[in-house]
């Protein structure tokens, strides 16, 4: 029966089903992965811009990046990297045969570590830029 498999079906399903922990981890992993890839392209774009426009351009750009909105975006990126990396670590543990019975708890442990590190990072960045 048409429409009963394939990517469209997958998306309709995944978005409709109850978000159990494992499914949530799976989706977060994909979203954060995309986020990091997008950032990578922006990063390369920005860097090549300074390559072609040597002179004051680089310093101006760096100054823009140090402004508050960009710092917030940086923190979001950091959160994405932490979530992606730690969940990756979680999956690697499963692959080595550990904790598969404890996958839900392990997910929340990893997310707690991610949240703590993002909080610390926010505090450090804020202190460096005089937010508090």
């Amino acid at each position: 029966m048409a429409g009963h498999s394939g990517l469209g079906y997958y998306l309709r399903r995944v978005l409709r089903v109850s978000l159990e922990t494992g499914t949530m981890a799976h989706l977060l992993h994909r979203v954060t992965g995309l986020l990091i890839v997008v950032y990578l392209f922006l990063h390369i774009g920005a860097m090549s811009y300074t390559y072609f426009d040597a002179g004051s351009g680089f310093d101006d750009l760096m100054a823009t990046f140090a402004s508050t909105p960009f710092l917030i975006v940086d923190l979001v990126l950091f959160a994405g990297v932490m979530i992606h990396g730690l969940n990756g670590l979680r999956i690697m543990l499963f692959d080595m045969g550990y904790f598969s019975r404890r996958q839900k708890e392990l997910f929340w442990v990893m997310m707690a570590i991610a949240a703590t590190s993002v909080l610390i990072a926010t505090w450090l960045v804020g202190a460096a830029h005089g937010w508090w």
Partner: protein
Amino acid sequence: MITALTLQELDVENVVLRGVIDLVVFRIFRFDPARNDAPTFQTYDLPDTAGMTILDALIHIKENMDSTLSFRRSCRSAICGSCAICANGKNLLACNTQVNDLKKVRITLEPLPGFPMMRDLVVDWEPFFDQYRSVKPYMVARSTPPEKERIQDQKTRKAYDEAAQCIMCSACTSSCPVVWTDGNYLGPAALTKAWRFVADDRDEITRERLAMVNNEEGVWRCHTIFRCTDSCPKKIDTAGSIESLRKKIIWHQLTGRI
């Protein structure tokens, strides 16, 4: 009376229906290939569902409200695997799920996702059993057996205890997002079956079995989403079985046995 409702019941659906009128609305997927119509959802209201399983509700609907409703069922004690369906987006056995445990006033019942539909809640299991048959789901012991039983220690017996309890209801395979997109993936049920024989020391083709699943449509296709484990009505850690296979494969490769 609104004042009598507890906080928990202040969920819109519950306030409107559950708290005031005791009623469950079953929204059931209907499809008959003989009629050439597009699938639809049909609703049935059941007033008193206390102590009723989803299968009881289906039988009640079939016997009293609409005899044309088709679904599979047999043992009604969670061992035959006939009545696996998708209720409110979650795969489960209709026979061992209490309606009221779902804590919903609207229960949507659909056939298992990812398989071709046959009629109403009945799916075509052939693709599922094809996957199952492709992993050689039987013990292969070519050496001459002893006169009595083969000796097996309790620890080894325990290693495949869980996997051997699989009832092949297909709730796991049907809940797997990878299966939905990739029809060639073996899926959790077939892989759990593979693990059942790898873990059993009476089986003599462990290396062949590992080679059979050591590819991109085998254990490595799994994304460890754990939907299979979550949906298993026998509480088998199917994802864990796949992980155990991976661990074994890695170990065999490191020690040069594959």
